[in-house]
């Protein structure tokens, strides 16, 4: 199944300078009753974003009109906790194509990549400068060259991604396409194992 192809992106960003944002905050469990992948973006960060009556909480960053863009910048250890891919669907569904942090939890990172959302790991100092900049600042992410640039400071950093996953994102392939293509090898493994 083709996923979104990704090459470069320049965008303003939404800063969330909180550490250890867990997947229960990204999408609370009571929203996991769905049987499709649609509509999770509306409930991204639901308990921080909405009052009990469903009205928006004015002080939460997603409700501040000056912050826009398709990049989320979050404090370290983003996506810890549950394995729910609904968290990645919520981030993607809201319209974020890139999440920048100094540290990601493993399962969230895998889930993001499997949905064409690029997790970009930067240094603590780079992250702090992104949080310090104004709402009109932009970030440029280039997957081909594996670089991220803070336009306000002009500073760039390179980020890691294994070349297999990079190829998947650049070409819009997913892991199941790959696994289906090596099914013969899987069957011969089954026959040969002790």
């Amino acid at each position, binding site marked *: 199944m083709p996923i979104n192809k990704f090459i470069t992106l320049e965008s303003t960003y939404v800063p969330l300078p909180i550490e*250890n944002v867990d997947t229960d*905050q990204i999408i*609370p469990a009571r929203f996991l009753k769905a049987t499709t992948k649609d509509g999770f973006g509306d409930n991204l960060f639901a308990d921080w974003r909405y009052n009990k009556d469903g009205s928006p909480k004015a002080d939460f960053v997603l409700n501040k009109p000056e912050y826009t863009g398709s990049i989320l910048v979050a404090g370290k250890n983003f996506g810890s906790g549950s394995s729910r891919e609904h968290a990645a669907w919520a981030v993607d569904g809201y319209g974020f194509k890139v999440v920048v942090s100094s540290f990601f939890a493993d399962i969230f990172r895998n889930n993001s990549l499997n949905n064409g959302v690029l997790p970009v790991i930067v240094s603590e100092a780079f992250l702090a400068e992104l949080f310090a900049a104004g709402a009109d600042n932009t970030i440029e992410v280039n997957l081909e060259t594996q670089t991220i640039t803070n336009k306000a400071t002009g500073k760039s950093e390179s980020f890691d991604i294994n070349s297999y996953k990079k190829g998947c994102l650049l070409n819009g392939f997913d892991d199941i396409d790959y696994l289906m293509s090596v099914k013969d090898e899987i069957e011969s493994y089954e026959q040969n194992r002790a």
Partner: protein
Amino acid sequence: MAGKTLFDKIWDMHEVKTIEDGPSVLYIDRHLVHEVTSPQAFAGLKARGIKVFRPQNTFATPDHNIPTINQHLPIADEVSRFQVDTLTKNCEDNNVTLFGLGHPKNGVVHVVGPENGITQPGMTIVCGDSHTSTHGAFGSIAFGIGTSEVEMVLSTQCIMQPRPKTMKINIDGKLEEGVSAKDLVLYVISKLTTGGGTGYFVEFSGSAIRNLSMEGRMTVCNMSIEMGARGGLIAPDEKTIEYVKGREYAPKGADWDAAVEKWKALVTDADAEFDKVYNFDAADIEPMITYGTNPGMGVGITQSIPTLDTVEEASQKTYLKSLDYMGYAPGEKMLGKPVDWIFVGSCTNGRIEDLRVFANAVKGKKKAEGVTAWIVPGSHQVEDQAIAEGLKDILEEAGFELRQPGCSACLAMNDDKVPAGKYSVATSNRNFEGRQGPGSRTLLAGPLTAAACAVTGVITDPRTL
């Protein structure tokens, strides 16, 4: 050449192939499935026009989104009922074994696997649930996966995974009376923090781990995800083999003898090297309780909430936000703080041993006025055993009610929600904001501490009960 770790041995046996500068194609022996993280994966299979590749290695049970009372009635919430019915339909369409609601083998997926012998040493086990790490207690590589990965395993019995680094956490010495496996693992997480294990697969070792029962080992491995680790495992020994023996899906006869022979080789070589090693002394551990909104924010129950100067400057804002949510302040003592709710259950502490500990501690006492308690067995088998052993009677006499099995208030997907602002001492695994219901405040602890708090109505050191 240096020896191999247990993790490396099992991983290598399951590697179908590796991709240069990419993940491994890892073969999966057991795929456990529940209603919440599977429907989109089954829909993906349908869209590709394929069926489950190896249904005989796939086992399903609804647990997250089911009520824990009146399970004989249709599920009242229409959306939840549809999700559970969707699992039933998907299993029927794909010949997958299902322990449906009301089935004698139904229960929390990570309780069901071990108690039926589905979980065995040396296996690779995955499930769309982060607490799949529980099964590592048997010396298997077990970890949680996302729904895209569930679809991979359903369609090819394989998963694409980068090989994690290895970590050894060695705990020697003897746990003090009243200190449990849960306290041990909360202590370790408080030292490593919630991100300390990220990128690693952990092997737990040492005399304190060896001395734990299989139930206790499951509690420890269950919580390895809470330090960010991909999973945790413990080398199998006589206790492991004794536990698996005779269970329904365990090997029988000559197959059993051959399996035991293989399982005995599942150890880390003496000269193997880990990427990281931690050593702890069991004697340093007291009953633990959490005070914040991640499982790394725990202290010994007689201790105070850390003061702000002990927290790194960059993290202070997040720290204060967390304490503000809990209604606590830095430096406050934990003992004596009010408790409104008690939750005993979940894949962390919902096994028979946990119910025994809780029931024995409250025996002859009364639930404190104003405390609401939910005692939720991890499975029907646990429930049946609790009744047979007389634990249900003890609980009822003390003012507690034994509910029906499920994940319940651990994640509050069903109606078992702790109200906003209320303090809940829970034997589950996560104290995140709103985890037990919007606005709820969770304090993680072991079943003995939960019992002490249940009969006093305040945070109480179980050693003083």
